[in-house]
């Protein structure tokens, strides 16, 4: 199917609008959406170990969520861990450059909260 992905970031400073935006249509096999309740220990995100083009995440909770990206191959740093703040949206692509300085595949995506629980909504694209 044709899948269209669009993004934008914008802010107005002293009356001047500053925007970065883009996107395009790609060929995709699947788009799966859902949500997952995350606790304060790492747990795998749905479909995170499967082949994918991208995983889009939105933190619908009121506390921060740590998103842990597992890369292979790597040298010392196997994980890139990012802060998905409450109300934040982010994209995990399928490939990273690891500290091995080579192209690495994202082999896992896991998440945990800073405290209590949060609902993380996802859009899984393959």
């Amino acid at each position: 199917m044709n899948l269209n992905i669009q993004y934008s970031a914008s802010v107005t400073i002293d009356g001047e609008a500053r925007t970065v935006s883009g996107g395009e249509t790609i060929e995709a096999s699947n788009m799966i959406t859902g949500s997952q309740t995350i606790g304060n220990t790492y747990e795998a995100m749905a479909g995170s170990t499967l082949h994918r083009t991208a995983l889009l995440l939105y933190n619908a909770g009121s506390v921060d969520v740590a998103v842990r990206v597992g890369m292979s191959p790597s040298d010392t740093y196997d994980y890139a861990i990012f802060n998905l703040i409450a109300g934040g949206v982010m994209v995990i692509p399928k490939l990273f450059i690891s500290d091995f300085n080579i192209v690495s595949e994202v082999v896992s995506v896991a998440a945990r909260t800073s405290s209590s629980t949060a609902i993380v909504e996802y859009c899984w694209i393959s």
Partner: protein
Amino acid sequence: MPTMTITITASGNGVTWSRSASIVVDTALIQTGESGSIFATEGGGVGSISYSGAAVVLFANKARGSLVKLLLNEGTVGLGPILPTHLPFVMYSGVGTGFTGAAKFSATATDTPTNDLVGASYSLLTGPLNNASLVGLKLIS
């Protein structure tokens, strides 16, 4: 205070997934061009930020048909995502609702994001290089 808004939308076969984030920032910087070291600690390029002041950043590859390496540095090592044209990468620093930092690159599976982003640069993997970033800076207390 200005609010930076980030929206990501995916749509196909009549189904749309769209989410937005809004973050209050002090001010914002925009970077665009063929070379991009947007934080001075990465050296070269158009370094414009020399301190760990980013509250939120959207990184984008604007060159169709290309793949770009986005090397991020949170004080330990440079690594990061490979960006096709259709996918941006978004990073946030802690804003008081949990974790204090933006990221942590680690060998320890239980670590959490405790470090600020101190460096970021684009480099070419394949195809032309043209990128853009919008950086929202932290509120000054």
